């Protein structure tokens, strides 16, 4: 058996608390590999069960995210096998490269970007927020929104692209300002 650090045992409440704390970071990582929300959710659930089963391997709380990401990576790659028959995807080699790059990003960076995004999102009007969130809603689409607003879907897609650029710029600026 791999040797384990003495005196470190992850109890059920500890495990769940770590999972809650780092779930956004794990979800962001899974999203970079799997362009399908249902399969991202499945990957996360499967990974959580595996993490629970193998929690005795964890040697410290600090090692949770890197360890969890490795478990999640395998689950995501498995989900991609399902997805590949349904839609065009980046090559395995490129996805591996992106996965490795994603793994090298620190938890602090991920948290800071999440915080920046929420601050930036609050700066948009309610109408624009609704458009920004439309592609990620499970109950309405950009096309539904266009119908309701009596606009063409094409014009709304163009607006969405512009808003997304603005949001990305805002996040970048906030991160840069934070770094200074």
């Amino acid at each position, binding site marked *: *058996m791999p040797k384990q650090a003495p005196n470190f045992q992850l109890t059920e409440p500890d495990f769940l608390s770590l999972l809650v704390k780092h779930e956004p970071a794990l979800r962001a990582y899974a999203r970079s590999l799997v*362009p399908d929300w249902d399969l991202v959710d499945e990957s996360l659930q499967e990974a959580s069960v595996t993490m629970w089963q193998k929690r005795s391997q964890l040697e410290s709380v600090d090692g949770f995210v890197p360890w969890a990401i490795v478990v999640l990576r395998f689950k995501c790659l498995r989900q991609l096998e399902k997805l590949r028959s349904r839609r065009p995807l980046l090559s395995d080699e490129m996805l591996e490269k992106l996965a490795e790059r994603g793994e090298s990003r620190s938890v602090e960076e991920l948290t800071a970007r999440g915080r920046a995004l929420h601050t930036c999102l609050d700066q948009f009007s309610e109408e624009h927020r609704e458009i920004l969130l439309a592609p990620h809603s499970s109950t309405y689409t950009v096309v539904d929104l266009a119908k309701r607003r009596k606009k063409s879907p094409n014009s709304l897609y163009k607006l969405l692209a512009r808003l997304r650029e603005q949001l990305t710029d805002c996040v970048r600026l906030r991160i840069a300002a934070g770094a200074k």
Partner: protein
Amino acid sequence: MESNELIRQYLLGMASDEQVHELEGRLRSDEQLQDEFLLQAELDAHLRQEAQSGFADGNQPVADTHVRTITPSSNNSTRVQTMNRVLFVIAVVALIAVFSQAIPFREHKHEFITITSLSGPVEWTGDGGRVTEHLAVGARLPGGTMELLGPDSWINFEFQDQSTVTLTGLSEVTITAQQDRASKQQKALHLKHGHLSASVRPQPSGYPMLVHTPSAELKVLGTQFDVETVLEATRLTVNEGRVHLKRLADGKEVDVPARQSVTASLEDGNGMSPSERKTPVTVWKSNLRADVVRGKWTSDLWMLGAQLKRAVASGEMTEAAALIAYKKSANFDDTAGSVWALPSAHGALVVLSLRPSARQPVLLTEHARVRVRGRVYSRTALRVGLSAYRHDGGFAGKYSARVETEEFTGADNEFEIDLPLSCFRDENNPAGSPVGNELVDWWCVTETSSAKVEITSVELTDTPEQDKP
């Protein structure tokens, strides 16, 4: 189309074949764009969470109503996200509970082993021949057969008296326990093939733990030992205490004390004296014919014969010319050859054990490199793996490295890969390193079971980078 737009289309699942191809090309040559891709994926994940938070507190979807449903208040947003996370955790807890309940033998009254950790595909056949691959940590099982299906599989289980057993690699064991009227239990393990490592608590007097292999029978009163059984031979290494071994071929018996090992073979009926643990070496070269555990050994001479037969059948050669060519190459040294990967449920597979060819333990050092030569006849990535045991006994871990398709570019399908030990990672313990442990077996597995791979040489070298010519 701009790169950022391509990324967004891709992440939303709206990109066409051409667009994905275009994105791949741009990402390949631009590391900054790779970071941008990761950033966009991250923003997507946060936006998704924000979009979903409109429903966690029972609000109506944004599109259906003019009522403000996604509130700009960050406090409320945070509250809703926290609720989402709690819901996620509840789902996970429920899954864990369901998973644990899925073990079919939970209520069996004769459960006497508990799984404490596992990795990779493992199949369990319990009482009545019920088969499951859904074993989980904490599952309690009665007697039955455990089969490890992958070269990187391992499982650790515990008896009621806290004696522990670890099985690794392609191994199969049947576990039984018999209890007498005085409630004294005698455990027995029937190891058909593979590696087994056990740490056995003192057993009741007259009731030693028994380990049966095709070539030997072991009696264990309380000790730590490793057993490997391959075809007709069993290798026992005792790390603590003492184990009594009986060779089945002739009934010869021997007591093996701590730090000694012995091999019991059905073929070799000569002396069976335990030998002291030898000083480890840091290099190893496979003897493919002797070392192969999984894979098809083919001698070069046999291959030549097959090629000549094909040439005669296709009319390229006369039978007389083929015979002359065959006789010219024929010699009594049939050790030259290769091992072909055999298909398995988890890819085409070759496994080599170090036991037959390594006369001393093989230590994995910081500068160790694994060099593999062979031929690959299909477009496939390869995973190369090592099994390591601690120098004082017991399983240390399974480490593997992935070799991409692009690495196989040699002429005539030939390849040579040279991997530093730092490339090898343990999936279950990413921070772990094999350095300082001993190599016990080597394997390689392809992505698909139909892939054709031939291994011609495997060696472990130990040369610091600056000393290389």
